[in-house]
């Protein structure tokens, strides 16, 4: 008995240390990015595209990458929403009862969710060759859409599962069809949760690099049509860090800070919507 008490004490300390290490690594990462990136932050960074000789240390900023990332993430999030919402509604309204088929759907989505983004990138590349597309905003958006569909569906599915059965029964007993129940009850009830799911997917799309590497390409200009290549923040960071010029590497840190702030903003607003959701949960 005494042995266990000592053991418990030892492990209690170890557990706190482990939790501390995990949290500390997050703080360390954020602190490093802020510390390294802040000195190189300037208004030029976020308001100008790369000018001539930018990658040798001349003037300019990463506006091309910021706008490119927002285009890529925005486009893919909208496309993914159009595909995810019907799937989620099907799972939660039309097939509310657990069946072998619904388990199969969820399992397939789980597997899709686990596939690495580089594989999506390679697959997007084969699609591009098949349709004769060049690296472009459109190809990037399509690849990212495939990547975030499972993320979005899972996140929405989780909130929809919490809708009480009684709510559906009430809706049906008033004579509503399943489709009406889906649009007027299920979606409305989980709206903040759906917004959270959209934000999470958007965040993933902004931060992902491996899938757009093959498909969206990179450019110093802001794309004006879907068929032009588009830059993205993660790739801008990667390429700038790869140059031997310290000034440009510094800009990589600043770009990393911009990306981190963007992700934190998305993360915080999704937390806000989750809280709203929890508040009006029955």
């Amino acid at each position: 008995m005494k042995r266990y008490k000592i053991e418990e004490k030892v492990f209690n300390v170890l557990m706190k240390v482990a939790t501390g290490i995990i949290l500390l690594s997050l703080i360390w990462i954020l602190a490093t990015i802020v510390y390294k990136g802040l000195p190189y932050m300037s208004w030029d960074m976020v308001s100008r595209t790369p000018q001539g000789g930018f990658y040798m240390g001349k003037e300019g900023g990463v506006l091309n990458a910021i706008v490119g990332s927002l285009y890529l993430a925005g486009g893919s999030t909208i496309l993914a929403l159009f595909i995810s919402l019907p799937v989620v509604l099907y799972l939660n309204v039309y097939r509310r009862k657990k069946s072998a088929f619904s388990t199969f759907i969820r399992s397939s989505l789980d597997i899709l969710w686990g596939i690495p983004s580089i594989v999506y990138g390679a697959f997007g590349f084969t699609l591009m060759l098949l349709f004769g597309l060049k690296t472009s905003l459109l190809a990037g958006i399509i690849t990212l859409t495939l990547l975030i569909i499972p993320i979005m569906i899972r996140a929405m599915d989780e909130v929809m599962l919490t809708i009480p059965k009684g709510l559906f029964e009430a809706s049906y007993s008033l004579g509503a069809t399943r489709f009406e129940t889906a649009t007027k009850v299920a979606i409305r009830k989980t709206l903040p949760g759906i917004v959270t799911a959209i934000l999470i997917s958007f965040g993933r799309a902004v931060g992902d690099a491996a899938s757009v590497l093959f498909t969206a390409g990179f450019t110093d200009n802001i794309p004006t049509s879907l068929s032009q290549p588009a830059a993205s923040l993660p790739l801008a960071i990667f390429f700038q860090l790869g140059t031997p010029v310290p000034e440009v590497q510094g800009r990589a840190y600043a770009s990393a800070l911009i990306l981190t702030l963007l992700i934190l903003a998305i993360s915080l607003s999704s937390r806000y919507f989750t809280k709203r959701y929890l508040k009006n949960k029955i």
Partner: protein
Amino acid sequence: MSSQGRILKDKIAHKVMLAFVWLTIILLLVIALGLFIKAWPLFKTVSISDLLFSTTWVPYEGKFGMLSFIISTFWVTGVATVIAVPLCLLCAIYLSEYANKKVIAWVSPLIDILAGIPSVIFGIWGVIVIVPFVRDILAPMFGVSSTGYSILAGGIVLSIMVFPIVIYVLLEVFKTVPEDLRNAALSLGANKWIMIRKVLLRKAGPGIISAIVLGFSRALGETLAVLMVVGNVVDLPSNPLEAGYPLPAMIANNYGELLSIPMYDSALMLCALVLFVIVVFFNIIARIILRRIEKKIS
């Protein structure tokens, strides 16, 4: 609107939704098929055993032995798993059994934030912090000289990236152990620690394994962060302080030359296919275990 119209709308919506469902499910097969078709020309000229079990990677001569990439992938992922599993297990037990609500309210959002940080940010942090740490402190400790860009650096960065998913799954698994079982153990006079060791960990055993496998397969495919710190040297690594070249990093690094060397695109797509097969295999195992646990409970 007439009720017939409404019912018709309902039925059409049903069909449309079902179509989208199938579209998503088929995606899995389409990805595998697409990669396979692109890799197919390679199978005609090079034998599969030469592709998978040879270390000679000379694209100009049409030699595409990817063994060193596969071994590197498992090295990096293995190092990450060894670091991440004990930390995550301890953290998850703490959060699920000991921590009070206040601590949880602080810790869980932070883990959420960690989960959302993009790969490239981990990479840049690895270059700034971990690579010099390996070069100046860890390597001299073992009496080896290293540039710091090594499997170990990749493993350390990766381990942090998989913390959130492993902790999430562990917490879910611990939740499935019935409260009654814990109380029964405690009422028999066990203290909390004995209960954790003899009841919680035993009951949650398969779930813990699936959490580890899920983290492991997440780590297998991580690209950019690893690419930035792992060194990218085509060679069979013999210890973690050497540079490695995992599959995802290799695919990402060579996309530029993709179309200039014959068969090169096929080889890279085959690499993606191999990665796909490995990851899907581990994912299926983990999910089967988790589904079984869920079933037992309901």
